[in-house]
């Protein structure tokens, strides 16, 4: 009951925020953040429009799977996002989320949505070790080959989120 109420509230909040964004776009005052693909990747795990709408649900789904069931597939993991979506400063070092140019920060600031991942999670790749490299490229290209099936696959995957 309360959970449903919370959902309704969240939808209302979301609706009003998106309305605001639309207004801002119309007025042409705030430039939308520019999206560029990371150097070594050909695409994200799904197309941009899908990711814009659903990345939070995908992350939430993955977080519960990992946290409670110990499922540690890399593809939709936050670590994978962070390792790929790196913005570097002039010295070539990855920038932290406290910098508004950080991939996540740029968009969230624009949309005025509070970002709660990096209170606990690291917002840059670890500098040393295997995890710093971009993993799972084959999976990415596999998705590129047939985008519609990829979206369908994601839809299936996300069904778990609603529960």
């Amino acid at each position, binding site marked *: 009951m*309360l*959970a449903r109420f*919370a959902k309704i509230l969240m939808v209302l909040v979301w609706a009003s925020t998106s309305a605001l964004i639309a207004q801002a776009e119309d007025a042409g005052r705030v430039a939308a953040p520019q999206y560029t693909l990371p150097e070594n990747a050909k695409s994200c795990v799904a197309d941009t429009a899908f990711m814009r709408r659903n990345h939070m649900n995908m992350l939430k789904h993955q977080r519960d799977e990992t946290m409670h069931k110990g499922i540690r597939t890399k593809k939709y993991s936050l670590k994978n996002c962070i390792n790929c979506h790196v913005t570097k400063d002039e010295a070539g070092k990855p920038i932290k989320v406290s910098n508004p140019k950080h991939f996540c920060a740029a968009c969230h600031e624009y949309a005025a949505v509070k970002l*709660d991942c990096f209170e606990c999670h690291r917002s840059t790749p670890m500098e040393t070790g295997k995890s710093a490299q971009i993993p799972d490229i084959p999976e990415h290209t596999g998705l590129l080959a047939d985008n519609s099936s990829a979206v369908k696959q994601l839809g299936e995957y996300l069904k778990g989120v609603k529960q």
Partner: protein
Amino acid sequence: MARTVYMKLQNHTGYFDILILLHVAVIAVGMGSVYYMEHFGHIVTGMSNQIVWGTPHVFAIFLIIAASGALNVASISSVFSKYGYKPYARLSGLLALSLLAGGLAVLVLDLGRPDRLMVAMTKYNFKSIFAWNIYLYSGFMVIVLAYLFTMMAKKMDKYTKIAGYAAFAWRLILTTGTGSIFGFLMAREAYDSALLAPLFIASSFVYGLAFTVLVLITVCHTSQRSMMNEDMVRNFRGLLIIFMAAVLYFTAIFHLTNMYSAEHAGVEWFILASGNVYSLIFWIGQILIGSVIPMAMLAWPKIGGKRQTLSIASVLMLIGGIAQVYVILIGGQAYPMVLFPGMEVTSSFQDGMVGTYTPSLPEIALGVSGISIAMLLSGFIMRVMPFLPRGDRMG
């Protein structure tokens, strides 16, 4: 018996405005403290990995206990049919609601992640006494609101009795729940006793009545109307003495059972006889200032019947109440946890050491602002809705 006519708090003196301003200022400082604590983390408070609950929790628990007790006067009139108390039943219900709101505000604002209040309200672990309490608190709000509605709406008074019974039962369960937050903790020597629930219930009678009496005397003063006759002064005086005697009784039994079992002798010595800050607060704060002096004042025939005595005794009892919760809560955590009975234990994590705790200014400000939230809320509602018996003009 004449029908009671109720009024809003009108034509008040400047004293009322000063009180309101004072509460607003205290709340502002309290909210500033919340922001400060939230920004820098709990490192700026006196709380630590050993004393995990500090001054904000002392005030929050004190207010939540007081909230259920504030309903006393209403219960006495509806459940025990003592109609002399009826004119104050509305005020009693209002205070119950606002004290609970004040206590919960402090509790929530001290969370490590107060921004996740929504999580606390949507995800429940039904084995947690905390989670039960969330239901007990919201249920209490609903029942007391319904109770007030039956008292104040037209032609609803036939339901007042049943609402009064429901509220009375609920408030006993609620305080049992608050006591059980500690009573069910087997890990800490100072808690782990079912006696904490009845002790908290007895305490709630004292704190709640003391708050009600103080507010009543304050509104009489500020509205220049006499709402309490000599009979009621005598009644309140007697009740405060009896309730305080009950608290002393449960306190004595609690410590005696603990002292009798050798296992708990250490923590009993720590609280009662070690001469540390907690035994000082217990003997001087709770027993002397909070119990013996006000009881003696009220029982003394010459001055016991005066309104001034009643208000001073109530203030002392509330101070004693804060001392009582402080000793139970902080003292209980300061006593080192026993991992290896009979052994001397040392580590880098302060094992085997008495926890040190000094309340920081922001913590105290947050705690005190809970009282101000309760008082501001009830003051405001009394101003806009008829909660007070009309009484006679003074002077």
